[in-house]
């Protein structure tokens, strides 16, 4: 089965690095201009899944992203890890896209690549969700627009010919599903973490940095016109939802009775006396003192 020539896409996004202090305002909001940037951590699992598929079953991996020009960084990072090429959809008219508008634009990119390659995608991997949006909606919305099968919350998978067998996390356990390709898979962070960059990939990216004309062969930056997308269906205009208002999660409380500096036994007795613990005590079995 290693001779299959799967056309594999992986959808990745550049997000603000909230782990770094840079660009994070004291109230927790993010100043995107000052914030450090990183590949969405969930997407690293998706990239690993795509690269694993290529290695085990054969094919090519194209990383696809949508965002402002610096998002090219994560496409190069994907190539360092072993992806074959990267495509960035970058267009000012994409600003203020909600999930439905994002799914439209990315669907147009996928359809464009399918035509370019003369081979529709067999597998599309995406991260479960992003750290800056937390919706987990864009993947399934793309699957619906493309009319392909989907497996979300995937924590492990294998291919039996052109049947995808996937373990899907559900509340209190998991299910194992089998589906024909093509399919879109959102990969949960219970999957294998992204492997180290390959030496070959890292050398390739170093070479690309020195030779922009060759870089253009590996990384294409395209806009809505290239993929024949209707700007009315993208960005703010194509978004059925809007952020109406935001506010801080209100400060609460101030009524806490804090015990401090007394003996531990006294403090505990005081708190237990003040709390209706009695109703919840486990009286079913005698607990030895």
């Amino acid at each position, binding site marked *: 089965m290693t001779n299959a020539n799967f056309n594999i896409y992986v959808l990745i996004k550049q997000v603000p690095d*909230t782990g770094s202090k840079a660009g994070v305002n004291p109230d927790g909001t993010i100043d995107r201009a000052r914030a450090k940037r990183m590949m969405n951590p969930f997407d690293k699992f998706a990239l690993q899944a795509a690269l694993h598929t290529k290695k085990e079953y054969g094919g090519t991996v194209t990383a696809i992203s949508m965002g402002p020009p610096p998002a090219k960084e994560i496409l190069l990072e994907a190539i360092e890890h072993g992806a074959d090429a990267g495509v960035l959809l970058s267009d000012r008219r994409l600003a203020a896209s909600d999930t439905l508008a994002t799914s439209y634009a990315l669907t147009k990119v996928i359809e464009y690549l399918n035509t370019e390659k003369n081979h529709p995608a067999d597998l599309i991997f995406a991260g479960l969700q992003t750290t800056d949006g937390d*919706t987990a909606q864009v993947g399934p919305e793309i699957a619906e627009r493309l009319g392909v099968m989907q497996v979300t*919350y995937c924590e492990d998978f294998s291919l039996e010919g052109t049947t995808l067998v996937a373990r899907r996390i559900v509340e209190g356990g998991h299910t194992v599903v089998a589906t024909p390709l093509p399919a879109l898979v959102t990969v949960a962070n219970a999957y294998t973490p992204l492997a180290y960059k390959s030496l070959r990939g890292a050398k390739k990216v170093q070479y690309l940095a020195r030779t922009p004309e060759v870089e253009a062969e590996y990384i294409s930056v395209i806009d809505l016109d290239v993929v024949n997308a209707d700007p009315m269906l993208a960005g703010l205009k194509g978004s059925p*939802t809007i952020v109406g208002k935001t506010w801080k999660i209100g400060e609460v409380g101030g009524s*806490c009775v804090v015990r401090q500096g007394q003996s531990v036994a006294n403090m505990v007795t005081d708190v237990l006396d003040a*709390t209706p613990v009695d109703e919840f*005590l486990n009286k079913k079995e005698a607990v030895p003192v």
Partner: protein
Amino acid sequence: MTDAEATKKPAEQPAEPELPLFETNVGGQVMIVAELTDGQLAPVGLELLSMGRELADKLGNPLSCVVIGHNLGDVPNTLGHYGADIVYVADHAELAQYRTMPYKRVMCDLMESLEHPPHIVLMGSTTTGRDLAPRVAAHFLTGLTADVIEMDIGPYEHTNKADPEKVGLYEGCLYAVRPSFGESLKARILGPWKNPQMATARPGVFVPLQPDTNRSFEVKAIPVNLTAEDTALTIRDVVVELNKNVDLTAADVVIAGGYGLADAEGFKLMEELASCFDNAVVGASRKAVDAGWIPYVHQVGQTGKTVRPKLYIACGISGAIQHRVGMSKADTIIAINKDPDAPIFGFADHGIVGDLYQVVPEMIAQLKRQITAA
């Protein structure tokens, strides 16, 4: 007009152009989707019925509930007792287990068969709801808000000149409030331009109504027409993992440990404290989970569970906002922390400043004495 009156009037201002008025409420249902786990109603369905009831009453529209599965028995009646006016039932062998495509087909067929599209459609923010809702929303090319923690109905004035066709005053909009930016902010998301206005709601946030067996409601069977493509995905296995079945949301008492425990061993102490109570489970802060001391299913807060137990004992948890949003609605919160400036003392009910490795064993000893005395 006298001169005196004229001077009282403020300087003439150019009249604000009136915004065109759009009524988004054309009588469409508020529709919620009830989920089943192993044939049993998942709590989130009953929570959604409670929220849906409030929204439907504000709009003056019916509340419907969709339940999809096989051999549903008394489930439809239960949904009526918990607040639905209409219960749509899709009962079919192919629907016994959740699968994206068959469930999507049933939902879309039902929604398209109605005179008006539903005004609002709500699902749980679960592995099922987050799989199905975007698929349905994309089918109808409508908006969907994820992981909502508050909802209401109200007007919305859209004045964004960048998008002139949408400018106007909209009535009857769904206010879907969700946390954003690491839960330090709440954002109200609106989608008044198209019905249904859709959202998934975080489990454990809304409180179910008391069931009323005298309520009148209608149960309607809905036709199930699946294509071969719809059923192309098959389920090979369903595995229940016992250690994954920590039901934080149904516990009366949650004993939560944080980074202050210092190591995985600390959770044994949490278990021991939990064993003093009936229906008590162990919870954890994200930092403790990230440190690998306890599995993710125990996590309370931001990316974990929202709990509202009767008693919450937080041990070595600083009480960062990410944790607070998941537990601040507990009836009574006891906090144990060695740092007197820990934010948790700002919103707990009772606090003990001290080393949890001294305080918790003392608490266990005193509780055990109470138990033997009882």
